[in-house]
């Protein structure tokens, strides 16, 4: 089951390498953003680079690599991608909402106060949406 790395045709190696670099670079950029962005809500966006196409790139690399090297379609990496895609939103949603609650409770930062925009505001926003 252990395949030596050199067995791969060149085109496949290049594809794999590209996907690898692409995915890991996205992961790194996500991390950089996560470090550099100033507020929590902005930082929230950065890791999704890693969880979306960061994972995607590396999974594709893996799929290509193993499919070519074992000359049969190896697709189980899809599962990882799928699960990451499905589960990451749970984390982010829960966490973001928790952050929102904390910020509101401590009234720090300019987060929209749920109790400030009363019904008129909501209607106004809805109205805006309908106009478009």
């Amino acid at each position: 089951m252990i395949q030596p790395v050199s067995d791969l045709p060149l085109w496949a190696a290049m594809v794999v390498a590209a996907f690898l670099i692409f995915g890991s670079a996205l992961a790194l950029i996500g991390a950089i953003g996560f470090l550099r962005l100033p507020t929590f809500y902005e930082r929230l966006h950065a890791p999704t680079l890693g969880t979306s196409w960061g994972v995607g790139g590396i999974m594709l690399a893996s799929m290509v690599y193993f499919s070519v090297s074992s000359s049969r379609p190896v697709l189980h990496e899809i599962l990882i991608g799928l699960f990451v895609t499905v589960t990451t939103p749970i984390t982010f949603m829960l966490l973001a909402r928790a952050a929102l609650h904390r910020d509101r409770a401590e009234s720090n930062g300019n987060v929209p106060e749920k109790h400030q925009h009363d019904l008129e505001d909501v209607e106004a926003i809805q109205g805006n949406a309908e106009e478009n």
Partner: protein
Amino acid sequence: MSAVILLTAISIAQLLIALAMAIASVRMFRGPRAQDRIIGLDTLYINAMLMLVTFGIGTGSTIYFEAALVIGMLGFVATVALAKFLMRGEVIE
């Protein structure tokens, strides 16, 4: 040739991921709030998973796949619990 390309790519990818992990852990230290730390942990998990997959490619072995799959499928549970703890003060109500 393909081996050189692959090995280089894998090394670069691993280093990039390691760097990403390092950055995520910097956020974990710096915070400033708990939510930052938790997202940091989540990022660490995802990057660790990526690291495992690249390691798998590097060794040409699918044996390490399950470990990555476990992270992918269940890694979020800890983070979810942390998030819910932040929001509700209780993990299971």
